[in-house]
């Protein structure tokens, strides 16, 4: 048995000697309690699941599957889903730190496993903890436009989401019986099992008199922290909460943009008199249009949201020719999908795919005006794509080419 090895003996002594600071039980708090762990776990599971499902929806928008085209309606679906994604992620921050705090002594328990099953569970929990911390950290950093890494945020956030979600399913499955038992409401008179029996590591219970928060107070505090964070950030997408959005990274009243014309390197090309919009690909009559040619098409106005993957959004009135009118003029097939290309050179979002639903939607425009005024360079002048139910990064700015597929 490994227990007799000198290393294990030393660690055993280190974690059980009552005079040493790392002894097991040294971090006792009456709030490190099974019921609290179960409730926080359930809340976190719900928030992470919401993030995962809405995240997959956003991924589907940006990496389209031919057999699962996203619909053009409802027009605000992406806005809703991505607002929910970011809000759930923000709200999970206090729940995650509280949950980690409650179960932390378990991470320090030693030896890490007495059976193979313990080691497997620990690996799963390691994946869940590292993945969960990374998902919340990278998401919070991303919406504040902080990129302390060199990998692609979207790729890393997406693939780590699968790892985290898999670990979450395994953890939830393993803990469901304990959690359900712990969360079941009990009559005040009913005798509760000593937690020391159920959990020799946590070893504590929020039962009995003690100073400070009780169980309900602690859970309410975590919920309150999530609530305050939501109230002070959700206004970046919910107009009703706009005035409270003191901590939001964007203010929709500014009509924010993610990439300015200068940062995209298109200031000159977009303003030049040589600007042309070409409609080509599988068309009967390829077109090359000047800005005046574009303005000569019948203008249509649509009230549409622009909804960023980073969770902010605002509604505006966009005006310009319908994409489908331009496609008809070029003689494209009725059900054609298109790629819309920007003047921008170095960006993963230079080209955006518009599926057949969206390309032929009456509200999908090559807009030249925003709220009645000509587009500014930062908003994509001279011409930008705007359509219903699309992520902001796919509402291509500085459009110069439409390729019919």
């Amino acid at each position, binding site marked *: 048995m490994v227990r007799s090895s000198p290393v294990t003996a030393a660690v055993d002594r280190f974690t059980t000697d009552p005079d040493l600071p790392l002894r097991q039980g040294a*971090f006792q*708090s009456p709030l490190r309690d099974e019921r609290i762990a179960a409730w926080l776990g359930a809340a976190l599971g719900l928030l992470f699941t919401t993030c995962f499902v809405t995240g997959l929806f956003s991924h589907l928008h940006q990496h389209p599957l031919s057999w699962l085209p996203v619909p053009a309606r409802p027009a605000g679906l992406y806005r809703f889903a991505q607002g929910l994604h970011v809000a759930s992620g923000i709200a999970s921050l*206090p729940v995650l*730190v*509280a949950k*980690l*705090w409650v179960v*932390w002594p378990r*991470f320090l328990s030693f030896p890490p496993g007495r059976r193979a099953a313990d080691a497997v569970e620990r690996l799963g929990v*390691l*994946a869940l*903890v*590292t*993945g969960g*911390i*990374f998902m919340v950290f990278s998401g*919070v*950093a991303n919406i*504040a*436009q*902080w*990129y*302390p*890494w*060199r*990998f*692609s945020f*979207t*790729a*890393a956030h*997406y*693939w*780590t*989401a*699968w*790892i985290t*979600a*898999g*670990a979450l399913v395994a953890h939830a499955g393993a803990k469901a019986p304990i959690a359900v038992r712990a969360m079941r409401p009990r009559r005040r008179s009913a005798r509760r099992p000593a937690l020391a029996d159920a959990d020799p590591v946590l070893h504590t219970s929020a039962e009995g008199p003690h*100073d*400070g*928060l009780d169980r309900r*107070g602690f859970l309410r*505090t*975590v919920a309150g*922290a999530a609530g*305050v*964070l939501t109230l*002070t*950030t959700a206004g970046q997408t919910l107009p009703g909460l706009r005035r409270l959005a*003191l*901590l939001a*990274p964007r*203010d929709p009243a*500014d*009509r*924010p*943009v*993610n990439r*300015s014309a200068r940062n995209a390197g298109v200031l000159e090309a977009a303003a030049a008199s040589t600007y042309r919009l070409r409609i080509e690909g599988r068309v009967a009559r390829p077109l090359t249009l000047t800005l005046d040619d574009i303005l000569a098409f019948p203008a249509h106005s649509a009230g549409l949201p622009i909804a960023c993957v980073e969770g902010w959004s605002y509604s505006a009135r966009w005006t310009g020719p319908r994409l489908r009118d331009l496609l008809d003029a070029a003689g494209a097939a009725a059900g054609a999908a298109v790629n819309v290309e920007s003047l921008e050179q170095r960006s993963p979002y230079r080209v955006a795919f518009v599926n057949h639903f969206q390309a032929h939607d009456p509200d999908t425009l090559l807009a030249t005006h925003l709220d009645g005024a000509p587009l500014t360079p930062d908003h994509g002048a001279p011409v930008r794509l705007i359509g219903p139910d699309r992520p902001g990064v796919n509402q291509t700015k500085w459009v110069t080419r439409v390729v019919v597929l």
Partner: protein
Amino acid sequence: MILWGVRGAFHHRLDTRPAQLARFLLGGALAHDLVLAPLVVLAGVALARTVRGRWRAPVQVALFVSATLALFTYPALRGYGRALHNPTSLPHDYAANLAIVIGAVVLAVAAGAIVSANRR
């Protein structure tokens, strides 16, 4: 699902840079275990030694809420994302706004504590 994620991270290694991603994954857990958690433990010990009786709960509430607010606002406070040519990114004075929100939380918690103390 886990294997699918690991496979994807390696398959798209130009985008995900698996070695760096792994450092961030483990680094996040280590930052929690070696920095954040000990700080919280120290704060807990300090709190247990200094604040007793019925004031401890409100202090715990105010500290937890303020700490999570500060944690969320940290990147905006540092202003990493203040892109030179995009004034619509991080438009607020986040230090002032964080102070306002924390101040409101502390006031609300204190008011709640006084009301419940009077009721007893």
